[in-house]
């Protein structure tokens, strides 16, 4: 099992799985080879890299518009054609119902939207998603089966 931290991008081969802990408004985006040889996961925190402090260094996995292109690049570097790529995603919840956190409150939805736009750019179909709601998620993706397993605080583990 490979742990994917906040704003990280990691790859897994067919014997491995990718896990990320406690997605709130963050989104775990997975791009995988339909032939199940390789998969990659990004723990995306924010929609657009233009909101980063100018000149600051950041991990490419932090923003949807840098994470998805990087994930695609990494996977394609193993000679996988774009047409073999598929995607699954989970997260983008609204953790706190509060007007004080309006900016934060909408981050989840904006993350989901931004990721979908990026996937669309590369023509990568979204096979399954578990997004929105008000609960955090811990997720694990198994390369060999393409199954994404999702745990939340008040629901049985779910597989998509």
């Amino acid at each position, binding site marked *: 099992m490979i742990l994917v931290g906040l*704003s990280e991008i990691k790859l897994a081969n067919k014997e491995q799985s990718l896990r990320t802990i406690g997605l709130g408004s963050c989104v775990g985006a997975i791009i995988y080879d339909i032939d199940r040889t390789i998969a990659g996961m990004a723990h995306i925190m924010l929609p657009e890299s233009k909101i980063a402090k100018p000149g600051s260094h950041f991990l490419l996995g932090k923003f949807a518009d840098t994470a998805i292109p990087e994930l695609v690049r990494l996977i394609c570097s193993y000679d996988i054609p774009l047409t073999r790529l598929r995607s699954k995603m989970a997260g983008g919840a609204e953790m*706190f119902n509060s007007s004080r956190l309006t900016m934060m409150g909408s981050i989840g939805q904006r993350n989901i939207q931004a990721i979908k736009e990026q996937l669309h750019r590369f023509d990568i179909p979204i096979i399954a998603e578990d997004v929105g709601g008000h609960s955090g998620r811990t997720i694990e993706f198994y390369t060999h089966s393409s199954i994404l397993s999702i745990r939340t605080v008040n629901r049985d583990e779910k597989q998509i």
Partner: protein
Amino acid sequence: MSPNKSSFSEDLRLDILKEIGNIGAAHAATALSTLLNKRIDLKIPSAQVVPISEVNGPNRDNNVAATYTYIDCDIHGHFFMLFKEEHAEMLVSNMIPNTTIYDGGLGESAFCEIGNILCGSYISALSQFLNITIHQSPPILSIDIAAAILGEGLIELSMETDSVIVIETVLVDKTNHHQMNGEFVFLPTPDSMDLIFKLALGGE
């Protein structure tokens, strides 16, 4: 952690942060001990500069009841009080019998009030120590995976930085048969950290 060129050594900075955690949490522990009328111990606080990618490790995959408070005015940051779900239940039912943190009413309010008092004593100790003004928002309750709750504070900080300062303190109620462990996590913004170091070390 701070992007600024600073003459203060990393060790000295972390020592200051630990001391801040200590002062804040000691006040909060006293407040909790008065509230519950029992002795509450304090573990030595930790202060660490942690890459954002490493804040939420496997130890944060547990379910907790937490309050989230936003700190602003002279310094800014995110303050979390986290208890294991069952410990939060004990805490609330100790205060007001027959209530629960899930009731959306009295029990929830009681837990938020505990968060308010503890965050308030932590923050007021800090503001006296540094002689600055700090405001706190009313606390919001969340019962969820610890990492997902902390993540909400980290998202905002992550716009500015790739690593954060995490000041953690653990409270322990030993008089009870069951240990009751509570935790404070304070995530100050990078700008606030610079101000804290400056003030703690007596100006420029």
